């Protein structure tokens, strides 16, 4: 097994061609993740494969668990002792992890969970899909909690956001989910690797981690609050944290929005395709714009509302039968017209299809 000393550090800012899944693994390694736990499932197998090779090289530990339940609980254990750790899976496996994610949220532990979403419900298929938006952004497991959810739309973002996810997880003591899909996971794109990137400097000390109790009282990790009013107090504290996240951690991109007549709203793969539709329209002098949520929780409601109200018409584009559109409607709160275009079950639209639909909406087809 190669030792840590044998690692060749990549040269500064080297641009290399990489698949999305591998970029996630590299982003995690750069962020100092040294514990990876997972279970095989398509279309994310390249993440564990890469982690299996790389963890021993960087002095970390890779475990292929016996199930996703085991994997998420291994994450629970590693997080409890204060190390940076992650797991990845795809939709059915993420469903199995929901119990553990709820407990991580309840115990306020930092961890990164990657969902390379596929078509569902049930076994569905292995095509790219955005069918897990509700599950990801509404908590997913039982109880009154949220996780931060980031939706990358390029291989570069898979690298960057995975890095960022570890900082967010530690800063807020919260599980962070990367929500992508099989298209992004398998896609190859150039990525600028940035070995000099460092974590934010204001991360709190992990004064809760189970590091041994020599000369201090032992610490306890739990999500059980049975005393009168205790759980309510805990829930309210969590809520305060979620509100802070809502005010501080919103991320989005706007593209050709200033003079747009119709605003497309899309994230992840759908956003890439929508962007191509906007480009196509702009070449023909048609004023489409794109609003791309990057943080799906917290959803960029205020920014979207401000933009949408100026444009008056919003088209949500998703690879499902309409999930994020609920957040869009809540954000615009009746201040503009909302439309939806989606394809479920792993059906992937192309930009031409979206462009034609926009023309129809604008009465130009």
């Amino acid at each position, binding site marked *: *097994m190669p030792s840590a000393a044998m690692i060749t550090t990549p040269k500064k800012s080297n641009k290399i061609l990489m698949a999305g899944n591998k970029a996630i693994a590299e982003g995690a390694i750069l962020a100092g993740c040294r514990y990876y736990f997972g*279970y*095989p*499932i*398509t279309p994310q*197998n390249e993440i*564990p*494969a890469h982690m*299996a*090779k790389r963890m*021993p090289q960087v002095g970390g530990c890779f475990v*292929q668990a*016996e*199930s996703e339940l085991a994997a998420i609980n291994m994450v629970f254990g590693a997080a409890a002792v204060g190390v940076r750790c992650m797991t990845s899976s795809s939709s*059915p496996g993420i469903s199995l992890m929901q119990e553990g994610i709820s407990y991580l949220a309840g115990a306020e532990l930092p961890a990164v969970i990657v969902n390379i979403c596929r078509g569902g419900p*049930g*076994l569905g298929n292995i095509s790219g899909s955005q069918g897990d938006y509700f599950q990801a952004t509404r908590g997913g497991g039982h109880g009154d909690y949220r996780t931060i959810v980031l939706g990358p739309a390029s291989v570069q973002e898979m690298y960057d956001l995975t890095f960022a996810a570890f900082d967010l997880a530690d800063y807020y003591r919260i599980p962070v989910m990367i929500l992508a899909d099989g298209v992004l996971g398998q896609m190859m794109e150039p990525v600028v690797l940035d070995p000099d990137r460092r974590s934010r400097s204001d991360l709190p000390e992990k004064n809760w981690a189970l590091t041994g109790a020599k000369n201090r009282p032992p610490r306890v990790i739990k999500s059980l609050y049975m005393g009168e009013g205790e759980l309510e107090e805990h829930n309210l504290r969590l809520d305060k944290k979620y509100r802070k996240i809502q005010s501080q951690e919103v991320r989005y991109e706007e593209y050709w929005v200033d003079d747009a007549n119709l605003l497309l709203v899309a994230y992840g793969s759908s956003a890439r395709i929508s962007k191509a539709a906007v480009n196509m329209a702009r070449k023909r002098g048609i004023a489409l714009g794109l609003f791309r949520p990057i943080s799906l929780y917290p959803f960029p409601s205020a920014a979207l509302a401000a933009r949408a109200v100026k444009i008056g018409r919003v088209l949500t584009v998703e690879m499902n039968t309409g999930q994020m559109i609920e957040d869009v409607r809540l954000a615009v709160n009746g201040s503009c017209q909302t439309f939806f275009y989606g394809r479920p079950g792993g059906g992937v639209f192309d930009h031409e299809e979206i462009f034609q639909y926009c023309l129809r909406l604008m009465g130009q087809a």
Partner: protein
Amino acid sequence: MLSREEYHSGVKEAWCPGCGNFGILNAEKRALVELQLAPEKILIVSGIGQAGKFPHYLRCNFFNGLHGRALPVALAAKLANPELTVIVHNGDGDCYGEGGNHFIHTIRRNPDITCIVHNNKVYGLTKGQASPTSDKGFKTKVQPYGVIHEPLNPLALAISLDCSFVARGYVGDLQFLAELIKAGIQHKGFALIDILQPCPTFNRVNTFRWYEERVYHLEEDREFDPKNQLKAFHKALEWGERIPLGVFYLHPKPTMEEQIPALAAGPLYRQKIQPSKVLDIMEELSALS
């Protein structure tokens, strides 16, 4: 007289050329013909994996469900309709990894189902990761430095749980395998048949050749008695130079279905719901209050 053709589903098998699954399909059809079990009396339950595709290729009732969960599904189906012959087809990852807990507890319950495990010692469908039965040192894309864990020994585990029928087959020995499947189906109680199966695509270690040099029939050992749990356990530990095939352990005992009083009156799906029974209880309760 049922012929072999009656069991053909007509669906084209989506397995690699040379896959051991073809042999298992072949042997099972042979067993079903010999038992003259009508397709409509059979329920095949499978999980997810290359093995999980199995029931698509056999004409019978089938349930292709969740990865790892075939056994609880099969158990409940058997309880609801004990007249069905329930056969489960699992992969080794499916049955011993994801579904490992169900494996242990279904053995304890002893329903009359046949649990066939296509043991290729690797995750086939997800393209070649180590499985719970992969040997130590086995290298894959995800275990590039080799497996560091002890392999799970399904036979020893089942015998330790006093599983009522424990056998090992091998796809290179089809007539023998068909006999084992027949015996497993005929056995009343939980029957485990772990089938050694080369995977020409993802397991380059445990090949046909590798097995041919090692396998032998338990019957060759005249001393061997499958009714003796300790001896069976001891035999189950034999692996490496020589690999025994056959029935390791036999312990007939009451099945789960036999011990549930409600089933004495026939399968639940055929029983009428009797509201009067509920009325009696309600009367009793109101008399109490």
